[in-house]
Structures are given as C-alpha cells and as structure tokens.
C-alpha cells in the first residue's frame, strides 16, 4: 500500500512538472506572428523596441483587421548579447523551430546557409516576394547585406560606415588646425604625437584584441588593412590572403600606436569591458581620436545616453580614415571605410510565411522607416527616406559610402575574424612580434579554409 502511495507521489511530481510545461499559446484566430530582436523597452536597443511596439505593430494589426485578415504580432524581446542570440538562432533553426521573423547580422548568413539552416526568401514565402515595391528603393550594395550566392534571404534594416571621431576641444588645446582631415597614416600618427605632447592621455584608440569581438575586425583591423592596399580576401583568385606586406604594415601600425609609442591605451583593448571604458574615456575628454562606426555617433555619444558627450555637435568632429599614403589604399583609394548591416529574415520553419512577409514588407516600407528615422536618425536603407535632421550623419554617409566595402560573404569568415582578433591581440599585448603574429594567423587560417584556399603576397 505504501509503495503504491509512493508511486502515486512520483507520478504526481512528474505530472506537476508537465503542467509547468506551457507551450507558447496558439491562438486560433487571428493568425499569430512572432518577431524577435536584441531589443528591450527600457534596455538595449530601446528605440527599436519602442518603434516596433508603439508604431509598427499597432498600425499593421489595424490595417490587417480592416482587411478582414487579422494578424496578431508579438515582439519577443531578447536582452542578452549578440553571441547568445546567434547561438539561440542556430539551435532553434537546427531543430526546425524558432520565431517567425528574426533580426540578423548580415555576416552570419553564409555560415547559417552553409549549415542548411536558412532558405532564400522566394523559397520560404514564394516568388511574389521579388515583386515587392521596396526592392526598387534599396541599392544593390545594401541588398547584398542579406544576400548570399545571388539569393535574397531577408530585408536589410540599415547599413553603416566607419571613420575617425575626434575631440575638437583637445585638438584646439594642442594647436591642431580644424577641421582636420589626415591624408596618410603618418598624418594620423603625427597628430597623435602632437596630442600626446599637449598632455592628452589617450591620443588615438583603434580597436584590437579579442575582448571586443567583431568590433576589432571591423573598426580596427579592416580600417588599417584596407589602407595598406588590399582586402582580407582576393575576390578574383577566390583565396584568403594570409601573409602580405600589407598585413605586416597593419600590425606595425598597431605596434607603433600601442607598444612602441604608447599613443593608445593597450589596457582598454585587452580588458573585458574595454570598449565601454573607451566610450567613457571619450566622453570624459581623455581620448583624442577614436575609430568607430556611425553607431557611436547616433547611439553611444548621442544625447540621453550614459556616455553622451555634452554639446556633441560642437565638441566632436569626424574625419575619413586615410590610406597609408594617398592612393595606396584598397582599389587605389585615398580613404577607406567598411560597412556592415543588419536586417530581418523569415524563419524557414514559420507556419505563417505569408503573414510574416506581410509584416516584414510593411515594416520595411517607406512610412514606418520614416517613423524610425524620427526616433533615431541613421543611414537609411531606402533611397526614398532621408536621414532625418542629422546633418552630420548625412555628411558621413555621402562622404564615405563611395569608399566603403563589405566583409567577404563566406561561411568561413566568422572563424577567420576571430583569428584576426587574436592576431591583433598578440601584437598589442607585446606577446608576439608582427611577423610571428602573422605566421600564427596564416597557420590558423590555412587550417580553417584549407591550403588550396589561401594565398601569400610577397
């Protein structure tokens, strides 16, 4: 008797646990569509979450209800880091689940497609997606952010450019003429030296190291490497460039800044929260020049942010990143920049591809995009929407988009990017010489991509 009692107890426990297993509620009517992004009202990417919940979703639901096809859209806020979000996507897609519309960083696409986790939009929804009016207003270059091997996987949400931000107040103190626009690396370094003599604590900060992740590759390494004359990948030979005088020049630039002359603060590049420290130091007037993306301008030092720079428009200037020497940059350019971008994909496992597409195409149409511009001015992905009321953003976009390039859209790229971060870290920490670090990089990339897919430029 007592044994049966005990078994009942076990059963009850198991049932009780099962009862806690409440799956996402499936409403019969209207159709339910979920969208997720790294955005939280009152937290990270607050503006995006607010735009979705107070403007896009209500207006869309209203319009659909009026048409007699009600759709209920739910935003699932994700508060963790980008890497965790990527991890969750990979896990969910690999078992055929996940939310219907997902925010996505463009450079993840090839890796996911390579793993068989994504399908082109036209396959998920149907060929009619190609008739969407919006494509005519999005340039080829921006469409490429979420395209791979000639297929569109989603709609981009924006792009960015990278440049040097500088503190005009510190430049004036050091007697440097304004506006300032360097034309060679030597110009940049000499300006940093002048600032140092004038007592500026951290004259130049350019990202390196593994703690900053992709920011090191984009805002740091690429911005120097492209000025040394070539890309990470040779798009004609279809090979990764693993050793070259350009890579060596790039690493020596880092060495000059962080190791030999102390023009930058290596500590900030190596500590875990270094990127935040560099923002705080910039706000507090300790950093003369900082190489960053336009996100730094529109979000990090913008009014209302914890690291907002007071009188931002008067105090902070920007300049294009020069090539090593005029004309010595990638494609013979004088100046360089690189763009990334994020956007939205439709989950190939969605039970409601039509409704998801209806929402996605609506949120990417002119009026909602304009509404977002009013909340946070940024480089628009649509040519019929202008940057709203931020002349600096407009100027940066028109000056730099012509020079800008993108990352290689290849499944190996994310792994190779982590090797780049490691290579810069080894130089900046003084652990290795530029030559040794380049050798270790070549070895690692050869292992990742295969010996047939790498090349050396003597």
């Amino acid at each position: 008797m007592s044994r049966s009692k005990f078994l009942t107890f076990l059963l009850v426990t198991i049932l009780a646990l099962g009862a806690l297993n409440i799956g996402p509620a499936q409403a019969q009517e209207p159709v339910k569509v979920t969208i997720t992004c790294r955005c939280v009202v009152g937290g990270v990417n607050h503006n995006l979450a607010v735009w979705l919940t107070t403007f896009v979703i209500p207006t869309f639901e209203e319009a659909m209800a009026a048409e007699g096809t009600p759709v209920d859209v739910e935003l699932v806020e994700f508060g963790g880091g980008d890497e965790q979000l990527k991890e969750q996507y990979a896990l969910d897609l690999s078992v055929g689940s996940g939310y219907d519309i997902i925010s996505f960083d463009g450079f993840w696409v090839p890796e996911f497609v390579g793993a068989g986790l994504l399908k082109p939009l036209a396959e998920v929804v149907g060929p009619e997606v190609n008739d969407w009016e919006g494509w005519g207003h999005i340039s080829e270059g921006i469409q490429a952010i979420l395209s791979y091997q000639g297929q569109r996987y989603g709609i981009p949400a924006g792009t960015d450019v990278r440049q040097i931000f500088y503190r005009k107040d510190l430049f004036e103190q050091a007697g440097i003429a304004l506006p300032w626009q360097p034309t060679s690396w030597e110009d940049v370094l000499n300006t940093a030296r002048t600032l140092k003599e004038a007592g500026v604590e951290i004259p130049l900060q350019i990202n390196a190291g593994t703690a900053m992740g992709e920011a090191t590759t984009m805002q740091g390494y690429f911005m120097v490497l492209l000025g040394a004359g070539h890309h990470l990948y040779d798009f004609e030979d279809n090979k990764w460039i693993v050793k070259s005088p350009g890579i060596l020049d790039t690493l020596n630039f880092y060495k000059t800044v962080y190791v030999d002359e102390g023009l930058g603060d290596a500590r900030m590049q190596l500590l875990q929260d270094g990127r935040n420290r560099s923002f705080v130091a910039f706000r507090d007037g300790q950093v003369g020049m900082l190489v960053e993306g336009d996100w730094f301008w529109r979000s990090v030092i913008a009014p209302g942010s914890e690291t907002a720079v007071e009188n931002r428009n008067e105090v902070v200037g920007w300049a294009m990143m020069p090539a090593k020497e005029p004309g010595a940059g990638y494609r013979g350019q004088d100046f360089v920049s690189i763009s990334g971008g994020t956007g939205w994909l439709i989950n190939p496992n969605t039970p409601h591809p039509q409704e998801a597409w209806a929402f996605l195409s609506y949120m990417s149409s002119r009026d909602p995009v304009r509404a977002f511009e009013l909340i946070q001015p940024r480089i628009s992905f649509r040519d019929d929407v202008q940057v709203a009321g931020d002349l600096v953003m407009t100027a940066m976009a028109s000056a730099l988009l012509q020079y800008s390039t993108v990352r290689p859209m290849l499944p190996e790229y994310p792994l190779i990017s982590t090797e780049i971060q490691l290579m810069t870290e080894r130089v900046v920490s003084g652990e290795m010489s530029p030559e040794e670090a380049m050798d270790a990089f070549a070895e690692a990339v050869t292992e990742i991509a295969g010996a047939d897919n790498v090349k050396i430029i003597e």
Partner: protein
Amino acid sequence: MNSFLMRSWLARALLFAFSVIIAAFFVTPLLWLITAPFNTQANLAVTIPSNPSLANFEAVYNNKFAMRALFQNNLIIGGGVMVLVAGVATMASYGLSRTHVPGRDVLVYVLILFSSVVSGTAAMVPIFLLVFRLGLIDTYAGVILVMTGGLLPSAIFIMRDFIDSIPRSYEEAALVCGASSLRVFRDVALPMVRPGVVVVAIWAFVNAWGAFLIPSVLLRSPDRMPASIASYSFYTEAGTPNLTLLSAYAFLYTIPVLVLYLIVNWRFGFRFFGGIKS
C-alpha cells in the same frame, strides 16, 4: 595573573584578531553591493550615500520582466531543483547506505566525473537536442530536470555520509515490528537525516538560483527567463551596463538566498555532521 589565565587570554585575543581578518576579507568585496544600490549616481567606488535613495529600487520594481524573473521564474526553477535534488538524492543515498551495493563509492565518484563533463559548455548542444526531443524546450521542466541531473551525483556524495553516520537500530526495530521499508524511510530515518537534507537542499537551491548557461540555452520566452538573464534588461540603449539599476537588482537577487540561509541556520543549523569522508 597566573600563566593559565594568561594563556587563555592570549588565545582569545589571537582568535579575535584572526576572526577580524577573516571577516574583513570576506565582507569587503561585498561592500559595493550594499552601498551602490542606494546611491543615485553609481560608479565602481564604495561611497556611503550622503542622501540614501530608494529611487533605484523603484525603477527596478517597475521593470515587470525583471520582477517576474526574480519572484516567479527563479522561485519555480530554484524550488523545483531543490525539491527534486534533495528528494532523489536522499532516497538514493539511503538505498546505497542500507543495502549492499558493490563498489558504490567508485560508482558515485564516476557519476561525479560524468556530471562535470555534462555540466560543461561542451555538452550544451547535445543537452539542447535531448531536451528538444523530450519536447521540453522553453519550459521550466526542461531546465529543472537538466539541472537536477547535473547536481545529483555531488548531492548523493554529500548525503551518503550523513546517512551512514546515523544509527540503524531504530530502523531495525521498526522493521521487526512489521513496518514497510518505505515507512521506515519516511517515519524513522528521514527525521534523523533532516540536517543533511537541509544542507543538500540549500546547496541545490543556491546552484539553481544563480544558474545562467542552462536557462539561456533551454529557455526562449522572456516570461520564463530567470534573474541571471533578466539582469541584462538593465543595460542601456548602447548595450552598456546601467550600474545604478543593476546594483539594486543584484541586491534584491541576493536577499532570498541570504534569508533562506539565515532561516535554515537558525531552525536546523547549517553544518555537515561528521563531515564527509570517503
């Protein structure tokens, strides 16, 4: 003063000095947690607030997501893991102690070795796939079961010695009187091993209360996330931590484990009877 009194006075003074040093070492890292939440402008310094404010707590209280994480999700997950680990480990240790299981010590140690592999990051993808196959992704049950599996071997290891150290004569007497084995366990043995159950329960609860990796792999809905993950909602638009709110939330996050410990310590005494030995 005679030398015995002198020695005893010296011993007391030494013990006092030693206690002060140890207490200082253990408490100073926590000072920030006590002061920062009450400051309106938090940085990394320990600043006694000149004008203590509860504004941070008010802001945290208004964050429904974070509050639900702490006072609903954490309690369900922590409570579930606590009950399961303590219950299952006690039964298993009792079984191991009161019947003849060949090589039981080696067995338990091997399980601990396995649990160290399975709780590591390398196993997270296989664990995810397993939980998916069980249909328990994005459920409390999935998180509770996986965590219980990981904590169980160490819990059995700790419990085993508690149970070995209690005398068997009462149980034997009860058996002679015709009580069933489960009755003996429940009515005779359990009251005697309660201090051990309490230690293991607290240990399991504390482990589940702070867990980050397993919930972040197995849960999806913001409604079910525990506090360790909800902490991320106190980051700014640009993704930098908001120290004032984070410290206030961290403070609230710590209170329940502290209170639980104090109650248990006062009620049962929190200690390892007879230690644990192999």
